[in-house]
C-alpha cells in the first residue's frame, strides 16, 4: 500500500471557505476525529467520502486527493 501523507490541501480549502474541521465533518456526515485523521494522513477515506468532501469544499477530486510529486509531510 502506498503511504498517505498529510493532506494540507483539505486544510487550505477549508480555510478558503472559513470552515472548521468540525463543520466540514458535520457537513459530510463523519466525526471530527475521522476528518482530523484524513488531514493527518492517518486514514485513507473511501471514494464516497472523498467525493462528499470535494462537493462541500467545491473542489475536484484531483485538487484535493490527486497525487503529488512529493507528499506534504509524507511519512515515507
Amino acid at each position, binding site marked *: 500500500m502506498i503511504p498517505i501523507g498529510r493532506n494540507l490541501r483539505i486544510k487550505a480549502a477549508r480555510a478558503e471557505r472559513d470552515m472548521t474541521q468540525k463543520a466540514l465533518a458535520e457537513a*459530510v*456526515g*463523519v*466525526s471530527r*476525529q*475521522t476528518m482530523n*485523521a*484524513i488531514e493527518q494522513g492517518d*486514514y485513507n*477515506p*473511501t471514494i*464516497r*467520502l472523498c467525493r*462528499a468532501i470535494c462537493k462541500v469544499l467545491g473542489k475536484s477530486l484531483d485538487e484535493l486527493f490527486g497525487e503529488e510529486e512529493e507528499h506534504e509531510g509524507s511519512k515515507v
Partner: protein
Amino acid sequence: MKDQKYNIDEMQERRLFQIEEIGFWLTFWASGAAVVIQAVLGADLRQIAGEGIVLLISSAYLVFATVRNGIWNKGGPAPTLRANALVSLIPAAACGAILLIRVLAVLKRPLTFEVAVVALAFAGVCYLGCLGALEILRAVYRKRRAKLDDEEEETA
C-alpha cells in the same frame, strides 16, 4: 459517511472491525491454549468439549467463509503442496507431544520404545489428516478462485 444503522462513520467502522478481529483471535487462541493445557494436564474429552466445540464452530466458519470468497490467507504461505506439507508438521508435532506428555506424566508410564512408536504413529496420522484436509481445501479454493476470477464483466 455515517452508518445510519449504527451511528458510526466509515473510519470508526474500520477501527471497530480491527478491534473485533483482534478480539476474535485472542478468544480463538486462548481457547486453543486452554484445550491443549487441559489435554496435557489429563482432562478427559468431556472436560474440554466446551472449548473444543467453540473452536470447531469458529474454524468451520472461517474455512467456509474464506474459501467461499476465494481467499486463502492474509500474508502467510502461498497455497502449495509444499507449504501445506510444512504447515501440517505443526499440528502433527503438537498432537504427538500432547500424547507423549499425557502418557509419561499423567499415566506415569516410562518412555519405552512402544510408547515412542505409538506417539510417532499418532503424530503421523494427525499429519496425514491435516495434509489431506488442507489439500482438499486447496483444491476447493482454487476452483472457487478460478470461478470468481472468470466471472464476466457486467455490460451496461
